[in-house]
């Protein structure tokens, strides 16, 4: 199985989620993260002080899918998360050796 981790802009979540569900993905896990990259951050003022904040809010999406689906999932996420502006994010794929569903102890693809 393949773990796909995608860093996306927060306001694209709904599109990405719906697109994934549409191609048959049944589950995913999301966490709020802060990204540093080419996209610039912003400046904040507090009375006399000025702070540069380099990190911008992003979502990290994690979806584990069978090998067979991996490419399509990457493709789907890319399309749904795309805005064309800097900071759209990255998609990483890596191998998962085992999966287990806690509720049923199923393992392998049917555990997803």
């Amino acid at each position, binding site marked *: 199985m393949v773990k796909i981790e995608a860093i996306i802009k927060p*306001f694209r979540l*709904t599109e990405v989620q719906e697109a994934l569900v549409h191609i048959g993905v049944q589950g995913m896990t999301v966490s709020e993260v802060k990204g540093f990259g080419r996209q610039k951050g*912003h*400046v*904040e*003022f*507090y009375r006399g002080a000025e702070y540069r904040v380099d990190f911008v809010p992003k979502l990290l999406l994690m979806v584990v899918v069978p090998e067979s689906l991996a490419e399509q999932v990457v493709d789907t996420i890319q399309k749904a998360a795309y805005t064309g502006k800097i900071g759209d994010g990255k998609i990483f794929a890596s191998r998962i050796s085992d999966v287990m569903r806690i509720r049923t102890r199923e393992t392998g693809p049917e555990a997803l």
Partner: protein
Amino acid sequence: MKRLVFACGFLVLVLILCTAFAGAADAPTPLAQPGVAAAVPAESGPPKIDTGDTAWVLASTALVMLMTPGLALFYGGMVRRKNVLGTIMHSFVALGIITVQWVLFGYSLAFGPDVGHFIGNLDWIGLRGVGLDPNPDYAATIPHQAYMIFQMMFAIITPALISGAIAERIKFSAYVVFMTLWAFLVYDPLAHWVWGTGGWLKELGALDFAGGLVVHISSGVSALACALVLGRRKGYGVDLLAPHNLTLTVIGGCLLWFGWFGFNSGSAVASGALATSAFIVTHIATGTAALSWMLTEWIHRGKPTALGAVSGAVAGLVAITPGSGFVGPLSSMIIGLLAGVVCYGAVNLKPRFGYDDSLDVVGVHAVGGTLGALLTGFFATKLINSAGGDGLFFGNPSQVGIQALSIVVAWVYSFVISWILLKILDKTMGLRTSEEDESLGLDLSQHGEVGYTF
């Protein structure tokens, strides 16, 4: 839908029963001659400052001042996190802008010597001649300046109320200009018509004790113009535009309730019987409306919400405002009951109309204010305030007509002027932030700061 019909039917029934009851019950209340009458001491001589009256008006003024921050929090909690400070600023900045405007011009325009029943003249600009002796035209037992500052707080909160309709997308600079001009063009004239000596609606006999027309209709209707001219927020109808911090909204709502005692009861501009009466009807209407919104919601959707209960309270406060110095306790209970149901309904109908009145200023203030101003025409009685008037249920059907007329006037005037003003600003300086700024949020884009760094 069925549930809604049921709920409404049920409430109409309750209304009818209560009305009968109210007519009967409020009448025999033993009453002194409170109000303006009581405020003018029998003995001749120059008006004298009463320490108790002044204490109550000053306390009330402080309470009304607190309503604007209360509103800031009430609204601030309902937007998304990234707009919390921007939304707070929409109210807070009124404390700066209108304070200065009022001292320099506003008070004179609204309450200064009358020009053609339409506006005050400029005799009182910079508070010239507004001193510490009472001005018996407005309040015979407190310093004129106390009356001036009490009224200032009304002028401050009114434009701030509008900001709920333009939340999460207006440019701060445009907002500041809008508010300033609106104070001159809408608030000051309207206040003069209704409350200023010589104002034409006042002379017509319109009853508006603490600002149903001047405060709530004017702001609520202008909010409608705002929502229409500005258009919807990005993501409206698609994204989760849920309140980010309802505890803030609860804090704000409660400060509003607390401060509103000053708003309504302080409008007696004296301590004593009339202030007491206004105080209790304010509270009764509010408690009842909180309950009735909550129950309607419970019946209609299956769950009573905290946001609903607080919204109901605000709706009740709005609805009782115009009649607070004219109606009795059971009448106020009916007004509150109806306010909760009607404003709940109005807020739920909003999606049908498609405009994005983000924080429901129309549904609560325009609708609630209109309801209250109208019901004042039914429930007002001279038994409570000899300087007021009798409503339909106390034998004077014409009051309903007068109320209806002034409501129409306030609607039309506020809407037209606001709409023109907004259109001009939109064409010249632009009202909305850029798309990018909107999605970054007002806090960062307009103010360069964030609400929370957890």
